[in-house]
């Protein structure tokens, strides 16, 4: 078969092998002395780079095929097969996954290189890269998996790596707790995914449980089951992509090293939910209600996270909430059936958000692990490369034309407006304004004005080349990635959308050019307002205000963590201890306790007869004999 290639499975295998080798080396080094960091770094970067090269090969091979049959498959082996359920360990590369594949391996490689600088002199250098490789391998399985079950392997694998890397500095209890939180919340989402798969299988899975077969059979799905499947899968997406109500883990996940935040918690893993919804677009397209739910959840998350982002003081938390907010946009996009717009935003977001995180990492590195923006300031001249690259990233995030974020975000807002989701559009534009505000609040406070912490400022210096080069590469991406999908109004022809079209069941509304212009205009105005307010308040240097009223409420994230703690975690633990302390000894133990109590009482009652004198026992015997005789002589006649 022309679509079968034998190297797809190797793409995730390389980083996985790297993870294994690095892990064994690290364990070895724990007891038998150090292994030089260069060796680790070399091995760590080999896997991602080879994967990236393969990704390019895949991309060009697909490009050479006719658009309607662009896909490559590789069925490595039968994973398990029970009854009607046949799961192959199979990999599928189609336009959608190849796009994901490209930027995941590309950004992954860059961040690996960056980490060599950032993690230098860390005690567990090898462990870090082992986990990073493991993550990349899992992410590639997620992207390339030919069916939902294989995707689930990667899905959980990235969750595991996220856990391991968040709790990387595991001596500190808070970090481990953040890791636990991430894993558990992700698992809640995974439950949705799992059940969604189960429903999907029993509905249409008998004819093959991979995307291609499912897509063929998707018309057999009844609307009711379809809705259930969509909503359950979306629960999974919510967990992984930090949407309401499962977004709480992502800000805490910033406890991990900064490259981790850039790679896992901004560029790749958290977008897996969007990818998944786009993957199942053939089902979502049949169930508009599910799409509406997705879109509204997304846009409300975007709003909520943007509000939280306005009031944070930790540079990474600001970026984390910004990530949640942008993910909300993506869901709004895929929710209104503009799948390619959503995926395109995933793509551009990966560049500028990774850039911002890495830039923040460079700042943190320079300031010796200071993360509070109210203790920074005036770094513009000290770290020019970082400043300019981050500025590009910030402009892209804020949606300034012609940076990458502008085009992708605009595409989503336009789709929402065009499909008649006016409410979503209004909120989306508002969020765009807020985004511009908090992004530039951060930029102004960090790089402009006067230094607030003189001592740290004096020690700060530009990061080494191994860290700045990835920044520059990403900045180029953030600048130009948007042009890949230039809409016709700017003279482009939506290249990415057309590339993705065969994988998705996209919906292109046809509306007048005036609507498109309106969408663009409002976005630009919102950006301008946001940046102006930020400049007015923070541009000239500002002192930290007292958080009062709404600001305090927002700073404390509407007390949602506390709410979850009281409503979910405490009752959970309480139930546990009620079972253990009350139910278990008093109720379920009752049969045992009752029977032993009965035996004891009965024993005590019969003890009276055990006088110990043989003669008395003989008397008992004789009494028995006598009674028997009485009875027998009745019958003897």
């Amino acid at each position, binding site marked *: 078969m022309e679509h079968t290639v034998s190297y797809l499975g190797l793409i995730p295998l390389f980083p996985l092998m790297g993870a294994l080798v690095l892990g064994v080396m690290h364990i070895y080094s724990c007891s038998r002395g150090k292994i030089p960091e260069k060796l680790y770094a070399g091995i760590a970067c080999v896997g991602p780079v080879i994967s990236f090269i393969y990704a390019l090969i895949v991309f060009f091979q697909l490009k050479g095929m006719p658009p309607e049959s662009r896909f490559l498959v590789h069925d490595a082996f039968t994973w398990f097969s029970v009854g009607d359920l046949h799961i192959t360990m199979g990999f599928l590369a189609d336009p959608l996954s190849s796009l994901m594949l490209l930027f995941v391996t590309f950004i992954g490689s860059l961040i690996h290189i960056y980490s060599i600088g950032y993690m230098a002199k860390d005690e567990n250098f090898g462990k870090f890269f082992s986990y990073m490789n493991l993550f990349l391998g899992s992410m590639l399985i997620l992207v390339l998996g030919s069916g939902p079950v294989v995707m689930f392997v990667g899905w959980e694998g990235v969750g595991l790596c996220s856990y391991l890397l968040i709790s990387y500095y595991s001596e500190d209890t808070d970090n481990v707790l953040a890791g636990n939180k991430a894993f558990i919340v992700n698992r809640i989402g995974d439950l949705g995914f799992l059940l969604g798969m189960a429903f999907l299988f029993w509905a249409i899975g008998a004819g093959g449980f991979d995307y291609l077969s499912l897509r063929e059979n998707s018309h057999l799905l009844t609307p009711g089951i379809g809705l259930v499947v969509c909503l359950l899968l979306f629960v999974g997406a919510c967990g992984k992509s930090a949407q309401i109500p499962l977004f709480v883990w992502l800000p805490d996940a910033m406890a991990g090293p900064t490259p981790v935040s850039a790679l896992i918690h901004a560029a790749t893993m958290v977008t897996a939910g969007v990818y998944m919804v786009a993957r199942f677009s053939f089902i979502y397209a049949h169930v508009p209600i599910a799409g509406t739910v997705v879109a509204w959840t997304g846009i409300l998350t975007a709003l909520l996270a943007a509000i939280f982002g306005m009031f944070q003081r930790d540079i990474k938390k600001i970026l984390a909430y910004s990530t949640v907010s942008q993910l909300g946009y993506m869901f709004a996009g895929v929710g209104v059936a503009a799948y390619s717009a959503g995926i395109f935003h995933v793509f551009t977001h990966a560049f500028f958000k990774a850039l911002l995180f890495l830039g923040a990492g460079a700042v943190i590195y320079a300031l010796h692990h200071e993360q509070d923006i109210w203790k920074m300031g005036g770094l513009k001249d000290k770290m020019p490369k970082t400043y300019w690259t981050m500025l590009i990233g910030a402009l892209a995030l804020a949606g300034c034309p012609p940076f990458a974020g502008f085009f992708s975000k605009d595409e989503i807002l336009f789709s929402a407006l065009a499909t008649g989701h006016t409410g979503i559009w209004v909120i989306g534009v508002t969020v765009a304004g807020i985004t511009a505000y908090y992004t530039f609040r951060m930029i102004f406070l960090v790089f402009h004005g006067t230094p607030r912490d003189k001592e740290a400022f004096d020690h700060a210096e530009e990061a080494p080349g191994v860290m700045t080069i990835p920044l520059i590469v990403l900045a180029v991406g953030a600048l130009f990635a948007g042009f890949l999908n230039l809409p016709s109004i700017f003279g482009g022809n939506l290249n990415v959308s057309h590339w993705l079209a065969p994988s998705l069941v996209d919906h292109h509304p046809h509306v007048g050019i005036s609507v498109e212009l309106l969408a663009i205009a409002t976005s630009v105005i919102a950006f301008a307002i946001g940046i102006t307010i930020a400049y007015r308040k923070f541009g000239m240097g500002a002192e930290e205000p007292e958080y009062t009223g709404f600001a305090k409420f927002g700073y404390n994230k509407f007390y949602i963590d506390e709410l979850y703690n009281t409503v979910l975690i405490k009752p959970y633990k309480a139930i546990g201890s009620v079972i253990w302390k009350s139910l278990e000894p008093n109720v379920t133990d009752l049969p045992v306790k009752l029977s032993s109590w009965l035996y004891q009482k009965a024993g005590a009652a019969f003890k009276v007869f055990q006088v110990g004198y043989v003669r008395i026992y003989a*008397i008992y015997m*004789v*009494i028995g*004999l*006598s*009674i028997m*005789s*009485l009875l027998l*002589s009745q019958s*003897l006649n």
Partner: protein
Amino acid sequence: MFAEWLFTGFSILSVLGAIGLVIFRHPMNGAMSLVITMISLAGLYALLSAKLIFAIQLIVYAGAIMSLMVFIIMFLNVQTEDLPEEKNRFLYLFGGAVVLAPVFFFLKKVVTSLPGSEATIVGGGFGGVKEVGLVLFRDWLLPFEIVSILLLVALVGAVLLAGKRRMSQ
């Protein structure tokens, strides 16, 4: 007629001996009364034409076992004050008799319901050494041998039990 008189005499003697056994406080007196019972039982065996058993009863039972008993009583040198205080033994005896009454009447009922037969002396070799020996070694050989082992074991056991404990202390 003479046999019936003999039977009456022996049975009265044996019952009296038995009653004596349970009533006398000192074991020596009890042992003596038991000897009376044994001897009268031997007489009754003779009346039942069990010649060999009559002989064995006299020699082994009334002779050997009872003299062993008496020997032990004397060996222990039991004084009256060493004996258990059995002030209310008559009460026990009475109570026991009441409890046993149903047993006795039941057994009596069973026995009397059996077909009766005259207990005249059987002539010929019945109960003689030769005849009993033939039955014993022809039909009862295995039990006989087992009994011999039992006796051997009892012998060893008795030696072990009554012997002085050197090992344990």
